[in-house]
């Protein structure tokens, strides 16, 4: 429950420099990062794909699309702060044979422009790639900017492929793959200085494939997006407690790699924990639960780590991730408690 706005908060004990700034990086202090992997990968791709054009609804700079736009001003369309137009114009460009990359924030695409993505793009299976920054809880600006339910909104849309990459390494590989794919794509975009994690695991992104990144015999974390990074940290941390954690990374939320998920859960004996940077309603957790129930696959336990079904607080990201249970420490605590 949020405190009443008429109640003055207690003075801060110490002056920790926490910020809820929009440009806050997801990276932990000292973590390896790569700047603007999406924009740079797009720039590279643009050399061989003249059909690729960029569109943004006044958020090119905040979706790393500005890198492409600055290099190719003739291939960039500034649509203004008009998300309905952004999506319908992208549909029109796709109809004329181009491959539009449309960028905005996830909240605006999911909440404001849904009908236009659904009917003008997805119903016709048009080749529009929708890349949206600030997925889930990746800003401290509060519910206006926190797309905590974007997966729930988009999972019901036929034809749409939904991608939730973990880090810069994966995002770089996703950009050419999504342009190669025929049909609409929704990409949960990580922008700015994006953590670099999966290169150390020898990981390669494959369209529609879930992959075991780390194996273990006690707990199976099925994770997506940045929560895979957290899950890998949890696996290291719980090793000290002699808890053996496996991490199955699911970057393609839809269509779901049912075969791999069923195979991994079916190995048996492991607590299944689905972790996502999203509401516990309507995301990967419920998708996996439904799959297991439909196929009669029963793990010894099933838990979800995700955001509560609430409008979340404003604040600094580390504070909020801890508060809502998606920080590494909070995840580790939860899993210890469930064992």
């Amino acid at each position, binding site marked *: 429950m949020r405190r009443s706005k008429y109640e003055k908060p207690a003075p801060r004990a110490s002056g920790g420099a926490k910020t809820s700034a929009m440009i806050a990086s997801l990276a932990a202090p000292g973590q390896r990062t790569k700047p603007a992997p999406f924009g740079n990968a797009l720039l590279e791709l643009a050399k061989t794909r003249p059909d690729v*054009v960029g569109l943004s609804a006044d958020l090119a700079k905040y979706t790393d699309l500005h890198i492409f736009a600055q290099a190719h001003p003739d291939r960039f*369309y500034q*649509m*203004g702060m*008009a998300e*309905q*137009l952004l*999506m*319908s*114009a*992208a*549909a*029109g*460009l*796709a*109809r*004329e*044979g*181009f491959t*539009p990359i449309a960028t905005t924030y996830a909240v605006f695409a999911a909440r404001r422009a849904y*009908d*236009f993505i*659904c*009917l*003008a793009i997805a*119903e*016709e299976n048009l080749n529009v790639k929708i890349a949206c920054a600030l997925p889930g809880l990746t800003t401290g600006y509060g519910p206006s900017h926190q797309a905590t339910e974007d997966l729930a909104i988009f999972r019901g849309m036929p034809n749409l492929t939904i991608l939730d990459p973990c880090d810069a390494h994966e995002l770089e590989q996703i950009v050419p793959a999504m342009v190669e794919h025929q049909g609409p794509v929704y990409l949960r975009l990580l922008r700015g200085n994006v953590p670099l994690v999966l290169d150390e695991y020898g990981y390669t992104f494959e369209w529609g494939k879930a992959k075991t990144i780390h194996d273990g015999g006690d707990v199976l974390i099925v994770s997506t997006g940045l929560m895979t990074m957290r899950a890998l940290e949890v696996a290291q941390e719980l090793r000290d407690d002699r808890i053996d954690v496996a991490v199955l990374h699911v970057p393609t939320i839809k269509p779901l790699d049912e075969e791999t998920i069923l195979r991994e859960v079916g190995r048996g004996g492991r607590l299944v924990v689905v972790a996502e940077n999203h509401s516990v309603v309507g995301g990967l957790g419920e998708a996996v639960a439904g799959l297991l129930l439909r196929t009669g696959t029963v793990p010894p336990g099933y838990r979800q780590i995700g955001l509560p079904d609430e409008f979340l607080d404003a604040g600094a990201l580390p504070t909020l991730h801890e508060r809502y249970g998606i920080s590494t420490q909070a995840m580790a605590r939860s899993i210890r408690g469930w064992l």
Partner: protein
Amino acid sequence: MDTVLDGQPRERSNVSLADRAHNIRRHALLMGEVQGQGYIAQALGIADVLAVSYFHALTFRPDDPEWEGRDRFLLSIGHYAIALYAALIEAGVIPEDELTSYGSDDSRLPMSGMAAYTPGMEITGGSLGHGLGIAVGMALGLKRKSSSSFVYNMFSDGELDEGSTWEAAMSAASFGLDNLIGIVDVNGMQADGPSRGVLNFEPLAPKFEAFGWFVQRVDGNDLDALVGAFDAARTHACACPRIVICDTKMAKGVPFLEARERNHFLRVEADEWRRALAVLDEGRLQ
């Protein structure tokens, strides 16, 4: 000058625009009779605009609806599909014998227009307020390809209620889309009643002028006025989008239907369809 093919004026057809409009009305009434219902008042009202579009203004190949050099005609108003099917039948894009399948299972002519179903149907309309934005994207795309084709977007006065229409209107002018021609059917009637009582969009011409468009407002049931307006829309020298606001009369051509007040989804009794056809034909002879 009738239908233009491949950018070259075709030999003058012996069929007048008035006959084309009449035939479009006939096709629409015959389709309406199949289902015993439909947006027939809109179809009768817009028939003259469609006749001028397809038999005077548009460049297209009836046997190759996706020919790259065609002008794109978008029907944003999905429920006007009955009217566009009638025009596409008259234009030879859809065989006339399919008319009896209108709205039936497995038909290529569903009640609401969808791109995947019907040759010549460029977009899926029906979720109102989509067409103009898609038209902006297509006009941008055509310019990228250095194409001389036009994009026509037909939308309704009801769609002026949708904010997306105005997002698109502002951007079309901002991009200087002189290859985009909007056609608004102002028939004055929406689902809940007279348009101006639902949400007053007047004064309409000054609104589009203020948005940076080349605006003409004509009687949408006056063929000569429409020909002049479409010619001017294509040839006017300005780097701006163009709009032809067409004031039309619902159910035009069938006086006993014109007289009905609540005509958005016009109720026509089973025995009235034939009478409507007879009245229409009678009016043509006069």
